[in-house]
């Protein structure tokens, strides 16, 4: 599709568009997921920029409180459900079948259905801007915060339909998420090529398997809670109706039973990317493959038992609080193990600082910092001060931007050649990296400070006397630098499509099965289904005198 051959006329535009709309090819669906996610990443970024512009100065009047509250609600909801999750699912969709030597996912039609359901969910959510009052004051977009605490979401406090857009948009996309997760799990279990035992799968496949398994069990609590909320709002049920004896706290439990594992759903695929890219640019296999798998399984299980660390301030007993301190701190152990293993991979290697590798190294360092601020928040009394403040916002953006988005950038530089057949421009890439690194740190390092100085989250303005203004200004300036950096990336993506150097099958001298196909791969992936004997089948081919299967 991307490299038109000389002498062959390009097919008409509508025919190609139709191809994409009705496709069941995992590669095209994967790219649609990623494209959709990147589109919403930009939209969510605009929402963030509006907030940062409003907060740059004390007592600012750039937007009304009603609009600001819609901005933070939509920003959070968009970024998690319509930017990060689609990108994560898209990368898994594209790479998992290729890496296990399969020709497609287990259920190609379900794959397409899941994508379109997720897409529909996003459209429903965004229709809220123009439904109702139209764009003035941001229409009837939801303004209850992305975790929509009860009873603020009851009809009494949120009349109209803004909350309903939030509920229904997410319910619909949740169906898509479960479909994709089911597909990934089944594909990994049932579609591997001969010789591809579970212990020989690339780590990206393992981590996406664990991610998909998590998705299967955690999206449902959110779905259930949203069904309950709809019943409350429209059929007079009392699930979260405190006047009738209902509990606002149980919404929090249900939401965070979803919400905490959800962040691992987002971060494990980022770890997957790091685990593929770092070894190739260190010229060594991943350090401690078995432990990496076990640590990830441990993270998956423990993540189901930490949710109430989002609820340290709601008045649980000291025993409950202590339990969640223990479980939350415990999850630091397998996470730390991963950081050490990436370090161990680089140690003793021959590091090549391609743009993809630079993003990975920064992501590892940033994961270290983000993990440590997480430890601080895990100490419940410390969280009694820092919780629901800008310190928490700084912490989770450190993970989401500093680790996940950095890893996604690394993934684009690494796999773009495979997807399009062209190399991305390294000069533009380096500009992207350094500018984004600086912008990221200007914004999110300094964002910890207003939290320490008492600034809570979700406030549309603040008093000048609080001493927060200078820090907010610096944070907002960093956003401008990040925007410039992203422009370098976008320009690179487009420019390279037309002018990039031809990539060939295996531009990075890598070792997993996707590099054995042409770039881009044919629709059917593999003409002959491969047979493998080790974790690095291409290493075995390139080094027949020293194959991996002798040592595994």
């Amino acid at each position, binding site marked *: 599709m991307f490299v038109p051959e000389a002498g062959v006329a390009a097919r008409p535009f509508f025919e190609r568009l139709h191809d994409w709309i009705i496709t069941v090819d995992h590669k095209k669906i994967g790219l649609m997921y990623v494209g959709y996610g990147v589109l919403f990443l930009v939209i969510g970024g605009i929402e963030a920029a509006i907030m940062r512009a409003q907060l740059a100065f004390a007592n600012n009047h750039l937007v009304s409180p009603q609009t600001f509250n819609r901005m933070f609600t939509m920003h959070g909801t968009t970024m998690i459900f319509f930017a990060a999750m689609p990108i994560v699912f898209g990368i898994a969709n594209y790479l998992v079948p290729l890496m296990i030597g399969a020709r497609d996912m287990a*259920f190609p039609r379900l794959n397409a259905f899941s994508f379109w359901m997720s897409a529909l969910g996003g459209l429903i959510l965004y229709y809220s801007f123009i439904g109702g009052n139209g764009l003035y004051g941001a229409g009837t977009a939801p303004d209850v915060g992305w975790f929509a605490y009860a009873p603020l979401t009851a009809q009494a406090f949120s009349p109209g339909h803004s909350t309903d857009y939030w509920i229904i948009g997410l319910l619909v996309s949740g169906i898509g998420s479960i479909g994709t997760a*089911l597909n990934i799990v089944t594909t990994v279990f049932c579609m591997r090529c001969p010789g591809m035992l579970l212990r020989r799968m690339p780590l990206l496949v393992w981590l996406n398997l664990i991610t998909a398994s998590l998705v299967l069990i955690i999206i449902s609590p959110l779905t259930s809670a949203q069904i309950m909320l709809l019943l409350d709002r429209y059929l007079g049920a*009392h699930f979260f109706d405190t006047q009738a004896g*209902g509990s606002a706290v149980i919404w929090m439990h249900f939401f965070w039973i979803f919400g905490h594992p959800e962040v691992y759903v987002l971060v494990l695929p980022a770890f997957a990317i790091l685990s593929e890219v770092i070894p190739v640019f260190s010229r060594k296999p991943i350090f401690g493959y078995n432990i990496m798998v076990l640590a990830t399984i441990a993270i998956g299980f423990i993540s189901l038992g930490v949710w109430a660390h989002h609820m340290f301030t709601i008045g649980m007993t000291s025993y409950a609080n202590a339990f969640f301190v223990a479980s939350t701190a415990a999850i630091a152990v397998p996470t730390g193990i991963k950081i050490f293993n990436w370090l161990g991979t680089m140690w003793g290697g021959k590091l090549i600082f391609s743009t993809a590798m630079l993003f990975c190294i920064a992501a590892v360092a940033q994961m270290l910092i983000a993990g440590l601020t997480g430890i601080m928040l895990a100490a419940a009394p410390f969280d009694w001060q820092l919780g629901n403040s800008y310190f928490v916002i700084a912490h989770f953006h450190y993970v989401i931007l500093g680790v996940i988005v950095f890893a996604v950038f690394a993934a684009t530089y690494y796999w773009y050649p495979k997807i399009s057949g062209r190399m991305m421009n390294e000069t533009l890439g380096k500009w992207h990296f350094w500018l984004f690194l600086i912008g990221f740190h200007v914004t999110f390092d300094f964002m910890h400070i207003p939290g320490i100085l008492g600034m809570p989250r979700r406030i549309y303005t603040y008093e000048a006397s609080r001493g927060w203004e200078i820090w907010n200004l610096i944070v907002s300036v960093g956003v401008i630098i990040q925007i410039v950096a992203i422009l370098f990336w976008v320009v690179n993506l487009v420019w390279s499509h037309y002018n990039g150097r031809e990539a060939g099958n295996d531009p990075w001298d890598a070792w997993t099965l996707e590099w054995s196909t042409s770039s881009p791969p044919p629709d059917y992936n593999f003409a002959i289904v491969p047979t493998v004997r080790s974790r690095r089948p291409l290493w075995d081919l390139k080094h027949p005198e020293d194959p991996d299967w002798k040592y595994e």
Partner: protein
Amino acid sequence: MAASSIALKQPEMPLAHELKGRVGMFCLIAAESSIFLIFVVAYLFYAGKSLNGPYPNEVLHVPVFNSICLFASSFTIVMAERALKRNAVKVFGIWWLFTIVLGAIFLVGTAWEWYGLIYRDHLTITTNLFGTTFYSLVGLHASHVIIGLTGLTTIMILTALGYVSQEHENRIGVFALYWHFVDAVWVIVLSVVYFIAR
């Protein structure tokens, strides 16, 4: 490429493609179990917390007949699968029909129970916490029975039209898994609603 990686012994074969239907269905069951679990948790959490009646021990009566029918339908569906395995399509059709009938009796029985609760006992979803959690949990289960019956009926029609034979045994088995799941959920719901939290 494949040629040079062929080892001297046969390569180890991972899990076969034919199992993908079952694996996929287990994944769906996992996700659905999670949905039900949250509604069960809500039911247990709110047990005894209603601010006013009617209360469960006043109005609930164990739906013995309905439950027997639903559990029996799991048995009949297994008999149907066995019949199909030996290509006895007509026998399969008869057991399949029994399954639908038993499932339909369960549904009608549930509707009858609800009719009584609403009009005789004045218990609705808005009456109190018991009403809220009862109708939502039992209703969620009933909606899954409806989905199951829809699938069962579709397969019934296809069988009657002659499209179903032994080669579809695997797919029928995958669908039967869903029906067994619906049954298993009823075991939980029955225990929690009519016994434990009464």
